[in-house]
Structures are given as structure tokens and as C-alpha cells.
């Protein structure tokens, strides 16, 4: 537990220390909107999967230098999900609200043979929360908050003579995470079940989670985007990403999101 915390803090500090060597910075602001195809399978409340299409919005700030790329991005999604079942009329109206903050830092690898293709290995810190609300007889709430850290790889591929088209791909996964989710039969995390009810604060909820590693929590994100530079100051980007979480506890929880997002990038 302490070792994992030390590793996470060291990686974060290292990222900021390395960041100091930035010289020629190119700052990019991106804003986008799109849709997500979401699947949630949470044995906490259903043996059936819930799927649906939700809206999403994203914002990001990217710094690119000759040595590294760092990116801070925000993501917000909202929509309705339905139970995957061919019959029955007890389908509850389930609303999903999800948000995430991701920080990715990658270093450029030297590639003398192919200047059109660049590899950037590094790491990603991600913090996200999914909150879903069902209405049967009154509202039923479920949530999962997670902060995770793990390696990331970005590949940039320029296309054409003028390099106006660029394909950018990223893959990352988590190796350690801090997770907060409700215990079975309660809206509280398991660590709070024997705590005095009236004394529980929002901070207690946040502190009521647990550290988990690859054997209990798997998160993988794959992104592929194609951008076209309209001019020096403005690009358009179409991005597809797949974000997958699997939390193993008493009752497994799986969340998968296929996101398609159209963005404007200001240089």
C-alpha cells in the first residue's frame, strides 16, 4: 500500500521535474463534442448489461515541444441507458453522468529512419467518475470514482508532402488505481459501514476507497484521431476512443465507452 503510494507520488514529481526543460512550446487548445456508445455491466444491481448512446463534450490543453508532449484534458458525458433485454416492462429509466480529468506526459523517441512517424512513450494520470441513477420507486444511485496511473504510448503519423493530415494514436492502461464505489446494500463505500451515520462527510466518502492494482482493476484506453490543418492556427480533428474499466470485487463492474468526437484545435 505504502509502496504503491510512494511510486505514484514519485512518478508525478518526476513528470513535473522533466517538464522544466521545455523550450520551444507549441500550445494547442481543443474543444470538441460527440457521442458515446456506453455499456455498463454492474452485478451490484443487475445481471443484465445496460447500453445506450450518450452525448459528450471535451476540452483539452496540449503543450508540444521538440522533446515532449503533455496534455490535460477534460471530458463530460451525459445520457440515458437501457437494459439489454428483449421483453419485460420493468426497464428503469437509467441516467448516466460521467466526467474525467486526464493528464498525459510523453517523451519523444528519436526516429531517424522515418521523420513522418514519431513515437512518444510516457505515462498518464486519469481521474474519472461515473454516476448512474435508476428510477424504480424513488431514485437508486450508483457510482464509481477512480484515479489511476499507468504507462502511455502515443504515435504520430504525418500524411502527405505538406503534412496537413496527421493520424495520432494513443494507448494506455493503468497499473495502480484508487477506487471509491458503493458497498452492496448501501450507498456508502464498505469502509464507512461501521462509521457513525450522521458524521459521514463528502471527504469521508473520498477517503473510503481503496488502492487496487492490475489484478483487481483493469483500465485500458485506445484512441485514434485524424486531424487536418486548415491553416497555421486552426485544425479539425475526428477522434475515436475506447475506454474500458473492469473492477473486480464481490460483484464485478464493467464499463466500456466507445467515443466519437469532433474537435476544433487552436494553435
Amino acid at each position, binding site marked *: 500500500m505504502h509502496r504503491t503510494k510512494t511510486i505514484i507520488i514519485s512518478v508525478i514529481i518526476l513528470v513535473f521535474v522533466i517538464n522544466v526543460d521545455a523550450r520551444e512550446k507549441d500550445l494547442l487548445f481543443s474543444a470538441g463534442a460527440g457521442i458515446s456508445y456506453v455499456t455498463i455491466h454492474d452485478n451490484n444491481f443487475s445481471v443484465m448489461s445496460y447500453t445506450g448512446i450518450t452525448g459528450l463534450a471535451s476540452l483539452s490543453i496540449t503543450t508540444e515541444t521538440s522533446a515532449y508532449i503533455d496534455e490535460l484534458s477534460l471530458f463530460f458525458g451525459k445520457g440515458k441507458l437501457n437494459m439489454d433485454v428483449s421483453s419485460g416492462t420493468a426497464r428503469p429509466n437509467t441516467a448516466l453522468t460521467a466526467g474525467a480529468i486526464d493528464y498525459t506526459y510523453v517523451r519523444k523517441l528519436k526516429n531517424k529512419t522515418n521523420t513522418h512517424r514519431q513515437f512518444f512513450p510516457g505515462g498518464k494520470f486519469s481521474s474519472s467518475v461515473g454516476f448512474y441513477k435508476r428510477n424504480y420507486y424513488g431514485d437508486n444511485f450508483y457510482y464509481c470514482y477512480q484515479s489511476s496511473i499507468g504507462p502511455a504510448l502515443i504515435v504520430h503519423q504525418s500524411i502527405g508532402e505538406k503534412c496537413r493530415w496527421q493520424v495520432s494514436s494513443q494507448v494506455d492502461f493503468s497499473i495502480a488505481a484508487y477506487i471509491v464505489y458503493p458497498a452492496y*446494500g448501501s450507498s456508502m463505500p464498505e469502509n464507512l459501514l461501521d462509521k457513525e451515520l450522521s458524521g459521514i462527510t463528502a471527504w469521508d466518502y473520498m477517503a473510503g476507497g481503496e488502492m487496487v492494482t492490475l489484478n483487481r482493476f483493469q483500465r485500458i484506453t485506445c484512441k485514434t484521431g485524424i486531424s487536418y490543418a486548415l491553416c497555421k492556427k486552426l485544425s479539425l480533428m475526428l477522434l475515436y476512443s475506447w475506454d474500458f474499466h473492469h473492477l473486480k470485487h464481490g460483484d464485478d463492474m464493467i464499463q466500456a465507452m466507445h467515443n466519437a468526437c469532433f474537435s476544433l484545435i487552436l494553435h
Partner: protein
Amino acid sequence: MQTVKKLIGLILLLPAILSCEKIFLDDSPENTPMATFEVCWKELDEHYAYFTMKNIHWDSLYHVYKALIYDQMEQYELWDVLHAMLCELHDGHVNLIDGERWSHWSECNGSPRYPEYFDFDLISYSYFKYTLKSSGPLLYGIIDSVGYIYYSSFTMDISDEEIDFVINLFKDMKGIIIDIRNNGGGDSENITRIQSRIVTKKTLVELIYYKTGTGHADFSAAQEVYVSPEGKLQFTGPVVVLTNRYCFSSANMFVSRMSVLPNVNIVGDTTGGGGGKPRFFDLPNGWAVRYSSNYALRPDGLNLENGVPPDFRVTLWPIDKRAGRDTLIEFALLWIYSQ
């Protein structure tokens, strides 16, 4: 040409990418009567809270009811079998749900019937001549120098302002009668909102035990529930809570929590019970099952599931009713004046 080939390749790959999480997803159970039965039985087996307390042999019931399931059965037949199985739990918080239809313990064979000992029309005419006022969901009036509040359902939320207004109005009264007869429950937040205007210091009112494993006796340590004074002022005089068998769930919990306070007496009949927090679980055929997922005790160890007995058992006498009197209210007034 190369680019076009890559593009076609990518399009062909898309369905595979879109379904990649299916590798990790467990196969959902089939929509068959047997699968629905199995999921329903197992969910309750692992998470229902009262098997031990009610001494229910759930394993034996599995064999009894499984024998009634067959693949070609109609949905209404499956409903009847599952409903009969759920009846064995004798629990008002256990329901089978199909959209608008809910099965209920009161429809089960052997479900007891009790008199209400309550006639709201009699109260509102005989004591108030139909002049009861409302502060949100609370109906209130004054009988001589005693405040009367009727709260019909905990599903109707009370705001801080609404309860403060009534408590302020009754601050100089000799006592307050809180009538919750026929209150079927609702949101437990409303319990705290009322009780926090009656307590004078932080008071332990309940112990809650949560399921932590799949065994019938796997429960967490007790979670203590305290109520502290809140709002503009507290009423410290005598309070009577009027109850009957139709006070369920949050109303049952309200009575239990109020009975802990030294200035409160419970008058009427034993409450209807329903001490566990209900939870919903989806079944493979699109129905859902609701069940009690934890249990609660009064600090003295009384289990709330079977109801809270009154301090004074008082029934509505027909002779009083004919004379335009509510026996419970009359008893409450006498007790308050005697304090």
C-alpha cells in the same frame, strides 16, 4: 490505392473494435423461466437480510419452487410461482416488479389483516371542523392547548422551513400529537427533519447492519445512527406519536427512533414493520425483484422488521367513534395534560 485499401481495412475492423468489451463481459443469462427463477433465488440467497432472524430455510424452498418451473410456462405462470416463493419471506419490502405491476406481501395467502383504528374524516370534522391547515405535507391544528400534526406519507418531503414553522407555532403548547397512522413510509431523511426538532442533545437512535458477504449471517459491525438538534428551536414538552399496523418502512423507523426519546410516548397499535432498506435487482426477463438488504435495531436491541410495539396500546372504540371522538387522541390528550 494504398490509402483506400487501408481505409477499407479500417472499416472492416470497426465492428470488431466496437464489440471488443464483449470478450470481457460475462454472458448474460438467457431469458428463460428457469434462468429468471435461478437469478431471483440466488440474488435473495446471497443478499436478503432476514433469513437467520426469520428462520427461513431458503435452500429447501429452492427445490420446492424449482419443481414448478418449466420452459414453456407463460409469464403469468412464472409470476405466480416467483410471487409464491417471495411470500415465504413475509416481508412488505419484498416485491416482484413488472413495470407498473408490483406483487405485495399483503396479497399472499396467510397474510394477516388488521383493523386501522383510524378515521381521518372523523378527526378533521370532530376536532377541527375541517379547518386543518397545511405546512407542506404536514396538516396541523390545535386541540385546546395541544398541537396536532398529521403526516400521511414520508414520500412527501418536508422542508426545514415547513417543520420549523409548525414547531414555532406550537412552542407554547402543553404538548404535541404527531399522528402517522396509515403512513406507508418513504424517505428516511424526513424522519431526521422532524426528530431533530424534538431532541435536545445528540442521541443514539438506531443501529444498522449491512450485508458484507454472501452468507446468511455475513453482516458488518453496527453503524450507529444519531440525531442531533437542528432548526430554529426544539420542542421539549411531551410528545405523543399515534400509530397503527399500517405504519410501514420509514414510518416504522420513525416510531422506533422517536420511542427512544424520554419525552415521547407511542400510543396506538404495533407498527407494520419493514426494517430493512429495500434494494432492486434486475431479472433476465426484464422484471425486477425488490428486497430488504440490511437490518436495523433499536439501541435496546428491538429488531424493527416485525414492528414497534406502542408504550400504550389503545384502539379506536366504536362507542367513541359514534360520539365523534378518536380514542387514541383522547388518550394522548389525557397523558399530555397529566405531565
